[in-house]
């Protein structure tokens, strides 16, 4: 985690700006991703996190700023170019083709073929088996990998997108709220995947709204607010509590708790108590860690 200072980062974005028509979604944002490091991007809804990773993944082009991959300035015209450089992404909207079977979605764009020349054809058996196995490893036991992916449940679909990115990510893995729709077990698996990717020397960009997911796995934290950077922190520069507070806004929670206490209903009062306890813990000492899937 400290050896990265002298190395060229896998991905470096400097002073990046992005506009959609008159809307300024991102301005003055910089980001570095080193091999074997997890960079967490945190921020409120609409802060520009997804926009940022879409630039890294080649979906969008920045309007200003520079983008380097392994030290070489690039301008990725399409996600395909990013993929060819080993940058795999899980998009927040999952980027699946609803009418296509699960296994075709899994391998879409990186199909495995057998045979040569004009006779080269899809290795369907391999792809079906791999899809089933990879999803099973994430705790998803599919009935049928030929089901159109649009008929899967939200979490199952998200697992397909993650398993696919993990399977194909060669150098950089970008995950946009991968655990949002996941069950406790599946979320745990994803966090494990991140740790293993890191151990294998991949650079990971991890977006989440859950500080308890971010802190254990993250090495570096980029906080965004309304399209602007609020600051970048290495893990040793920031405590878990500070991170949580920054993301949540401590005063917000305190207010919530008071409000609920004022309510007439006894039931509400009980909840208020519970919430107050939380606030105390947050602003006071260490909020103890929690299970990965919460």
């Amino acid at each position, binding site marked *: 985690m400290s050896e990265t200072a002298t190395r060229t980062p896998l991905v470096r974005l400097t002073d990046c700006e992005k506009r959609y028509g008159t809307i300024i979604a991102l301005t003055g944002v910089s980001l570095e991703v080193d091999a074997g490091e997890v960079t967490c991007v945190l921020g409120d809804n609409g802060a520009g996190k997804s926009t940022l990773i879409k630039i890294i993944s080649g979906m969008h082009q920045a309007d200003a700023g520079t983008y380097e991959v392994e030290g070489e300035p690039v301008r990725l015209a399409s996600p*395909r170019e990013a993929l060819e450089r080993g940058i795999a992404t899980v998009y927040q909207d999952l980027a699946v083709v609803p009418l296509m079977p699960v296994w075709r979605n899994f391998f879409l764009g990186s199909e495995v073929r057998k045979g040569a020349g004009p006779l080269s054809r899809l290795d369907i058996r391999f792809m079906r088996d791999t899809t089933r196995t990879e999803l099973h490893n994430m705790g998803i036991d599919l009935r049928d990998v030929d089901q159109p992916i649009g008929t899967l449940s939200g979490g199952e679909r998200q697992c397909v997108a993650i398993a696919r990115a993990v399977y194909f990510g060669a150098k950089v893995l970008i995950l946009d709220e991968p655990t949002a729709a996941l069950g406790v077990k599946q979320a745990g698996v994803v966090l494990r995947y991140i740790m293993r990717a890191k151990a294998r020397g991949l650079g990971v960009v991890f977006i989440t709204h859950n500080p308890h997911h971010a802190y254990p796995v993250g090495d570096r934290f980029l906080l965004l607010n309304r399209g602007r950077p609020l600051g970048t922190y290495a893990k040793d520069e920031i405590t878990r509590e500070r991170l949580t507070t920054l993301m949540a806004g401590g005063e917000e929670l305190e207010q919530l708790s008071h409000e609920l206490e004022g309510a007439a209903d006894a039931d509400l009062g009980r909840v208020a108590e519970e919430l107050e306890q939380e606030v105390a813990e947050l602003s006071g000492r260490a909020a103890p860690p929690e299970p990965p899937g919460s």
Partner: protein
Amino acid sequence: MSQAVDAAAPPSAPDERLTRRSPLARLLARPEAGSLAGAVVIYVFFFAVAPPFRGLDALATILYASSTIGIPAVAVALLMIGGEFDLSAGVAVTSSALVASMLSFQLTLNLWAGIAVGLLLALGVGALNGYLVMKTGIPSFLVTLATFLMLQGLNLAITKVITGNVASPDISDMDGFGAAQKVFAAEWRIGGLSLRISVVWWLLFTALATWVLLRTRVGNWIFAVGGAESSARAVGVPVRRVKIGLFMAVGFLAWFTGMNLLFSFTTVQSGEGVGNEFLYIIAAVIGGCLLTGGYGSAIGTATGAFIFGMTTQGIVYAGWNADWFKFFLGAMLLGATLLNLWVRRRTEASR
């Protein structure tokens, strides 16, 4: 459910969350099954009501009529699965035939030279359509509508300028005619039966398209760009190349149909082909392709072309009042579609 991360393959015991389904039901649940059922019923119907329909020669005639719709429809269906339209396909057929024949005739070249130039032209028109659609983002309906009109104008105007007439000259005495006719429009008479090569080509192209769609990477991409273009782009599918390729495939089969036309009739009317683009689209839609893209099959499209061809001819074989022709055609198409639907509903409901 508590296996380690690198667990072995999942268990293959039957899943308690599935009801079982008979193999027949499975077969009938394939997307082509419904339209095939429609075709069979219409066939049986005409077989019953129209004695002249029963002969093999009638079948040969129907197959031929279907093949001239079915060949370009294969590519049109692929394009439609890929999420785009091509309204210029019908006149592109005529254009390539006109170019091939007039070029060879005017320059007194071997016909194969004209054929090659016709191919280049058809591919070029396809590529242009594709390029404009992808580059500008204008809906393909509009772009190909413009190409359709322009080609139609060019067909007329250039034929007029060159031949002084509205039809291409007769090329049956030119070099290379025999060979080219064997390739594009051969006709074998076996007994009283006339079998035409275009039917063979039709089946070949359908088989090829099916193979491409289901067994190759490009097929995967076609479904993807039609089903969810931005998702496809996001996972690295070269959307632009796929779509331009599809437009060129339409160009290719339009050219092929044009050659069939040219070598069957030795001359081409410059106004021909207008409106046929819709027959191709209709065949694809009857065959189960979604107009919105992302779903469909080549076999279904072939069945669609067959249903259309069979109905058009069948009404004549049945000798029904010609004034009512369109009415019967519409009613039978609706019937076939409803049947198709009913078959699929049944199989979905069946356990």
